[in-house]
């Protein structure tokens, strides 16, 4: 989901024009700055359940939050040494460009336009999202194909609005979309019964059903996804050393799941694993950290701090969370999903 107002867009265009020029002038400095400061500055949302949201004590949690904590653990040895900077959708890229944050982990879709024109580099996909539909259970609909003739609420100026029209055309299912300027008005209209379905990214649909629906059990998310929204953290372009760290830490967490290393068994495996692949991740084999400008235990500390990717998923958005999202595309490649760790060797 992306959304911007005309003026904000124009302002952002001005800001970017000025900011793009100095990009790349200070290559290799981010790691030094982070070590000197003693914390990683991590750009997050103002609060999206499961991805980055503060609790009542102001403690941040979520999949994106854990992505930042893993990097802090790897680089600084302490997952708590993260400074979270809440940003709205329009501010996020400018903040990264200006160096206000070291990494942007704000459920941000990776696409060509952003990759090629914003002066940022996306690291590793931490959630494969897609646009879906939320419908009231009483309509007894089990598939999006039954939405022929339905009225669908969504937010204007988003990719969602266009995706649903494209889908309706491709499927030959005429639907009527009612679009609102604010996200809040659009889901309120849906919950008041104005529309038979609501559409946005599936992960947001789950949060919406749990937090905003009058009774969450009266609503169901349809199985079909009608667009691809790969969400990935990003760093400022031009610092290859920092980019490599931001890319390989999440990769190590996925590999940890492939190799059955968990938060619970990481200490024991470090003591007695004989598997060279496990040893490399646990800091008892080849020293790969040196190549990243880190020490030998970088990935061991990251896994100990947040667990492997699967544990991160279950805790924040999966079965052990309020969202209860299925693993689906976010499962490992050898379990029917899309996650495939590049070899840490």
């Amino acid at each position, binding site marked *: 989901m992306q959304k911007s107002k005309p003026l904000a867009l124009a302002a952002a265009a001005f800001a970017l024009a*000025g900011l793009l020029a100095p990009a790349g002038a200070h290559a290799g400095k981010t790691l030094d700055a982070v070590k000197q400061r003693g914390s990683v500055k991590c750009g997050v949302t103002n609060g999206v359940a499961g991805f980055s949201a503060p609790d009542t004590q102001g403690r941040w949690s979520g999949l994106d939050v854990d992505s930042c904590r893993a990097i802090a653990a790897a680089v600084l040895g302490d997952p708590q040494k993260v400074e979270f900077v809440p940003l709205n959708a329009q501010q996020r890229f400018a903040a990264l460009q200006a160096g206000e944050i070291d990494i942007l982990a704000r459920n941000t879709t990776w696409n060509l336009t952003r990759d090629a024109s914003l002066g940022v580099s996306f690291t590793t996909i931490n959630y494969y999202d897609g646009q879906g539909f939320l419908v009231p259970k*009483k*309509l007894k609909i089990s598939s999006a194909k039954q939405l022929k003739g339905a009225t669908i609420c969504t937010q204007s*100026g988003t990719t969602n609005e*266009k995706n649903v029209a494209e889908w309706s055309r491709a499927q030959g299912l005429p639907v009527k979309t009612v679009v*609102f300027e604010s996200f809040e*008005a*659009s889901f309120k209209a849906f919950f*008041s019964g*104005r529309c038979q379905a609501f559409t946005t990214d599936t992960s947001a649909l789950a949060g919406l059903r749990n937090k905003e629906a009058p009774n969450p059990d009266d609503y169901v998310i349809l199985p079909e996804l009608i667009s691809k929204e790969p969400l990935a953290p990003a760093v400022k372009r031009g610092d290859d050393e920092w980019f490599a760290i931001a890319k390989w830490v999440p990769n190590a967490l996925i590999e940890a799941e492939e190799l059955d290393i968990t938060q619970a068994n990481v200490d024991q495996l470090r003591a007695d694993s004989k598997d060279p692949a496990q040893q490399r991740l646990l800091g008892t084999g080849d020293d790969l950290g040196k190549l990243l400008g880190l020490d030998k235990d970088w990935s061991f500390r990251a896994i100990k701090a947040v667990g492997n990717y699967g544990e991160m998923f279950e805790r924040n958005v999966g079965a052990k969370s309020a969202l209860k999202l299925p693993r689906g595309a976010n499962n490992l490649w050898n379990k029917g999903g899309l996650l495939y760790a590049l070899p840490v060797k």
Partner: protein
Amino acid sequence: MSPRGAVSRVPAALWVLLAAAASAAALWLLRGVPGLEAPRDWLQAHFGFLEQPAGFGISEGWLDFDSGHSYARAFATGVTNTLRAAVPAALLAVALGTMLGIGRLAPHLLVRAVCTAYVETLRNVPLLVQLLMLYFALTHLLPDADAPLRIGPDVWLDKGGLAMPWPVWDGGWWPTGLDRPERTAFGVAGGAALSPEYLAITLGLGLYSAAFVAEIVRAGIQSVSAGQKLAAQALGMRGGQQLRLVVLPQALRLIVPALTNQLLSLTKNSSLAVAVGYPEVVSVANTSLNATGRAFECLAIVMAVYLLLSLLTSAAMGIYNARVALRGWQ
């Protein structure tokens, strides 16, 4: 001096053209200034994207539109939707506002109190708040789509709005049949429908503007000297006659110019419809600029549309003003 409206509307359009030309010249002069990227981009504005397929849907309107149609047609649909909301809202505002304005000066205390309460409530609450309240009241109170309320033969009311039969033309002069709304799995479909979004913006805008029109009418009537009314009474006219034949014709000279302003702001206020999901021209522009990235072009179109509508309103009101203006003062 010729009638005021007739000459003044030509310079209005001229001044606008001059201002546009001056802005374009300023941009052209600034094109080489380092660090000022925008003017150069703006000069390269081109509207070729208007011919491409829009790729999004528009939920209602007079024009047939689907996602395969061009951006140009999307904007045309948006403009007609703006008119579809603004014109009935203006008629409602003028009719209701005139009655309220007269009512605020009525001899009867209760009539005066009701009219004053209406005016003071509606003009002191922001329009956006009123629109959202009206819209969510409508969507909550209307019957569910699976249990529509039948208010007449083939007339249904549900959360999808008010559906009624509508004649169908097959190219000839006379309607060849009636398109009757029918109940479907997802509520009532077919015929002509007034959606809750449309009802919210049209009623909301009309009721809100009526409060301002009422004040304009009251001020106009009070500007007519009391002696005129007394003279009419002396001639034996009844209350309605005094108002219609003596007071209002003189009051209109003050009312019409102020009313023109009110109608201009009514048209521009219709852009708040994006908040309640009605697809007028700003909503279409918002979607288009996000899809194409052509922010400057889309905003330029919106500006041009409102400018044109405002100039047309001014011109029409100018002609009317010339008719009610004091005669014999050449």
